[in-house]
């Protein structure tokens, strides 16, 4: 039944040529097997688009376009790189190499993040961010203080301080009490950290718990003892949205990028079935190494 179409076809020159070509290829494959048995493709085509790309990359790095010599080198370099790449893949060098795997991961993450286009947020979106993270943007409380110090060197610091406090309550001027030291006797509006820097944590804590206008102490420190008067309190405040906007934008974008990356990873992991078999040689119990695709 097939005989008649076959006889017609075999009189077509194209068909004959095709059949001859196939035979020739088969013979060639038989003679030079390495060219086909996983061998590298021998044609490297560097088109005008690629040349422009090389020149532009160079410009990005150095600020100017390459000269003729430089361009020649760039192209030659690219060709060598392409050859090495093909040969390496043909040899299977890209498999099971930790360094290459790590670098591919880096590149992949970079590419994934880059393609997750983050639209600039609206003011309303930023206001919501500010509301959710209010603590982060508060300006801390500051206090202006007067401090009377009793140095360990003269001894009996707590007693002297207590005695001085009584005299203060009876009207003695603060300037007449305590030891003169390199430590400040008064501080302008200062944060708690700023007070700690001079007097340590205990005194700062007392200063920030004290009521305005009342001498508190004695408080012990590494120096001896202190009496503290709060002269002014500048309450912690939340700056306005307009004041904070540039900072909010920066923080929001950074947080969004991190979230996008994490979301992309979760999606990827969910596509894979993962099975981990631990060795029997007394490792941690299997439950502790629970790995789930959503982690």
């Amino acid at each position, binding site marked *: 039944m097939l005989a008649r179409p076959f006889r017609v076809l075999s009189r077509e020159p194209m068909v004959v040529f095709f059949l001859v070509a196939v035979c020739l290829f088969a013979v060639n494959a038989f003679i030079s097997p390495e060219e086909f048995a996983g061998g590298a493709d021998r044609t490297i085509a560097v088109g005008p688009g690629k040349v422009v790309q090389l020149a532009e990359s160079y410009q990005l790095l150095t600020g100017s376009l390459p000269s003729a010599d430089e361009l020649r080198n760039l192209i030659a370099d690219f060709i060598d790189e392409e050859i090495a790449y093909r040969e390496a893949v043909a040899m299977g060098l890209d498999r099971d190499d930790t360094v290459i795997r790590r670098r591919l991961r880096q590149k992949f993450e970079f590419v994934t993040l880059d393609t997750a286009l983050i639209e600039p947020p609206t003011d309303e979106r930023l206001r919501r961010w500010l509301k959710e993270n209010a603590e982060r943007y508060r300006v801390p409380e500051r206090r202006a203080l007067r401090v009377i110090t009793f140095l360990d060197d003269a001894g009996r610091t707590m007693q002297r301080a207590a005695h001085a406090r009584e005299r203060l309550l009876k009207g003695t001027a603060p300037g007449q009490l305590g030891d003169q030291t390199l430590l400040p006797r008064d501080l*302008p509006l200062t944060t708690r950290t700023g007070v700690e*820097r001079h007097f340590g944590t205990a005194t700062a804590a007392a200063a920030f718990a004290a009521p305005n206008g009342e001498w508190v102490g004695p408080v012990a420190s590494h120096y001896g003892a202190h009496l503290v008067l709060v002269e002014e309190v500048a309450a912690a405040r939340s700056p306005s949205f307009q004041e904070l906007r540039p900072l909010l934008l920066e923080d929001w974008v950074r947080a969004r990028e991190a979230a996008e990356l994490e979301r992309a990873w979760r999606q990827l992991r969910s596509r894979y079935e993962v099975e981990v078999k631990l060795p029997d040689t007394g490792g941690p119990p299997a439950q502790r190494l629970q790995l789930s695709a959503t982690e």
Partner: protein
Amino acid sequence: METLASSARLITSAIALVLSLVAVAGLADATDPSSAARDRVPGSPAALGPRQLPGVATNPLRDVYFGDLHIHTRHSFDAYIFGVRATPDDAYRYARGHAITHALGFPMKLKGPPLDFIAVTDHAAYLGVLRAIDTPGSQYAGLDYAEDLFSNDPELIRDAFLRFGLSLAEGKRLEEFEDSPAVRTAWADSVAAANRHYRPGEFTTFVAYEFTSVPDGLNLHRNVIFRGGDAPGKPFSALDSQDPEDLWAWLDQQRAAGRDAIAIPHNSNGSNGIMFDRVTLAGEPIDSDYALARMRNEPLVEVTQVKGTSETHPLLSPNDEFAGFELFEYAIGSTDRITRFEGGYVRRALMTGLQMESEEGFNPFKFGLVGATDSHNGAGSYYEDNYHSKIGIVDGEASGRGSVPPAGESWDSYTPSEGVVRRGHWSASGLTGVWADANTREGIFDALRRKEAFATTGPRIRVRFFAGQDLDGVDLVSDDGVRRAYERGVPMGGELRAREDAAPQVVVAALQDPLSEPLQRVQLIKAWVDSNGDTRERIYDIACSDGLKPDGDTNRCPDNGATVDLTTCKTSQGPGNVELRATWRDPDFDPGQHALYYIRVLENPKCRWSTWDALRAGVEPYPEYPATIQDRAYTSPIWIRPR
């Protein structure tokens, strides 16, 4: 370029934000007339009167601030090889009190309050280059030695890395890094980070870098600190020229373009005497142009840091019982020993300067003193009991710094190599203290420029020091006293004219760091040129702890009985003072002599870091290192100009 512009906009907005925040919150105190400290002091020699930023707390009578002016991050070629991945941001966060990670993976946290200021000073030479080589797809990732550099074989790493060391010793840039974009990128990042973390009134950061000149292995390193946030496109590195005179010429240009900066040399102890030589690098005798250029650009010297203290040496100061302090007598980065001490130590250099002033009318060595760490971990170690040394994975563990034998060994079975012992001689130093109008770039920089600065070997010892002709009744611990001191005398870093009829008076106050040991004594070190034209030095103890008095003949405080228990590192509880004060008049003053005074304050002894390491490992301390240490502060000198 685009990202730089938008970053710049973000930065300026952030700075404007902070300033306006502080301005609104601080308006009340800036106009409060009742507080004495706000008074302006008219026309005093130390040029009082703050340049006020709106709302930032300023004090014309000046406050003390502490900072580290020498920190390295992963941008430095050597830090990167040491496995350090801390960024400038990490360095700033550490200085503010947050924990960051050491190259070996453990957390590092600053002991005590945050630092007030900091300069990240990465090597300009090959800035960012090692990281670029390590970055997949970068133009350098394909270098033939790239793989060796980041292999696991220490031999391969060392050989690959040697090319960078040799390149610096020769002062020749490796070809593959000509006009490297990696350097520009890293520098832009460094500048942006400094500007991003600057909080006027709270935390000062500086645009800065290190000029790593090391001709033939001899140390001529300097750190360059800019006053403002505006930086040149590229830092002038030792690969552009190894000669400090070329650096000064470049700095003069920067200054003319509105970017004031200073250079601070360090590790003269590793220069084999060329740091403070009487001839230039080119071998010419120093002349007045050189002296002016040097003093215009280098008002300070970093006298103490991890790689040893360069105040003085027992061979140069045989009568100074405290001269042998944290000496490091090797060339930097090698086991070659230093053989020439003259020209390598700061006290002798100050004296040489006096001598040149008296003989030739100019003084190239009229510098003040500061301290820093030079830590390459992004984080400094300032205390003996909290020490993580300097170079990442190499010395992050005690066995790497020669203080304990490796695991499983004992001092009987193991002798540390000279390379390791070198690191046992490194120190938990140092810090800079300044008396400044405000904690701002302008405030701190101007204090550095006028040398109202002092060095400490780690702890935050506060020292104030004035000299003048009529300081009766001046104390340094009341507003009135300080005001009078500025009016009638000069602070550290200043200069006095001698008077025929009376010796200058000196007033000093020093306060211990509450997290360190009490103070033992205050010493005054006098240097002068005698009638034969020779330089001389003499040390007077001018205040002793515990009510003791210096001996009239020896000028030394008696032993205050302070002890250290080496089995526990506990220090004696009684001896020592929280604060020491002194007023003193020079009994040997000669108004016809060029002279200077500077103050050295000593703490009671305590365990050295190497002893702490040994204690924690349950081994004996290695006998080659001192078991205890007396931390100290050195003020900038006050010079006396003869009639």
